[in-house]
């Protein structure tokens, strides 16, 4: 999977002599390739579901008209049950609030590894310099966060992230830091491309 990710990162490149239309097309080549991989992955696992999952059939629908009316009548029946079962009303309201918060946090929060990887990938296009140390730094920070039991791992990962974004202050890390503030916002938008819908 990481090989695919690394390969996708380099699909964006276009020859500098290409026309504007070809450069536009090349710039979203990696995103389009990712969409095809998503389709193949999804389809293969739905094939597995098709062959192995049981059907659990129920009674047949009373009439053709029921295809349109039955789901909505069942919805209003549920609301009528609230009179007898007050916990049901409380559950409906609270689960609405819970699932809203869950999906907002899930879509807005970004792991540091992903954000740094995306900012590295976007910076390749934005600045033209290849900042070769962002990717190892982000890998190192994610490894430190997840695998080690070191108590200072959070401090180390913050130091690494700080050094990557402000690399112009450290002379041995070459790369442009001017685009870092605008690029830090872009990963969230880029992740919204690949994000899941609300549950």
């Amino acid at each position: 999977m990481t090989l695919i990710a690394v390969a996708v990162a380099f699909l964006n490149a276009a020859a500098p002599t290409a026309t504007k239309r070809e450069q536009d097309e090349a710039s979203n080549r990696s995103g389009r390739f990712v969409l095809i991989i998503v389709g193949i992955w999804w389809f293969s696992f739905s094939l597995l579901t098709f062959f192995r999952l049981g059907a659990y059939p129920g009674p047949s629908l009373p009439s053709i008209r029921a295809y349109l009316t039955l789901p909505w009548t069942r919805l209003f029946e549920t609301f009528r049950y609230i009179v007898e079962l007050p916990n049901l009303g409380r559950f409906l309201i609270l689960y609405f609030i819970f699932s809203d918060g869950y999906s907002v946090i899930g879509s807005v929060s970004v792991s540091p590894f992903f954000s740094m990887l995306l900012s590295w990938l976007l910076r390749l296009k934005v600045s033209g310099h290849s900042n070769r140390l962002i990717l190892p730094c982000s890998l190192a920070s994610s490894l430190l966060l997840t695998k080690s039991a070191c108590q200072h791992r959070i401090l180390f990962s913050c130091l690494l992230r700080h050094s990557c974004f402000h690399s112009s202050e450290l002379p041995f890390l070459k790369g442009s830091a001017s685009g870092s503030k605008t690029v830090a916002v872009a990963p969230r938008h880029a992740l919204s491309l690949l994000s899941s819908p609300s549950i």
Partner: protein
Amino acid sequence: MFAPILYSNLFGPSFFSYYISMSVIAQCLVFISVSAFADYGSGRKMFFIGFSVIGCICTSLMATISSPSDKSSAAALLILANVCYGASFVFYNSYIPFLAASHEDVAAASDNQKSVIYLSSQLQT
């Protein structure tokens, strides 16, 4: 006063936010209209697989969009893919009673014959 519903001048990062919001409105209507079919006929598996496959095909078709002139087809495919993905979640959740039927908490809370036998067997240890 209000922005038109199909806002065709949109481009850039706000494109996806806007059309994902549109897809959520569509999801709200589609989920209610479709979820009851999980209990009738062979709808549970059929609708599950059907929505999964349609969503999968729509996401794959989004890969054919390479230029800003294809915005409208990108919007339609995005809305459809999101709605089908969410609808497949509805039918995924409809399988929960069958998968959880053998859990001890569920067996303790239900009063059919098998749970009585299971619980009485637990008392002897």
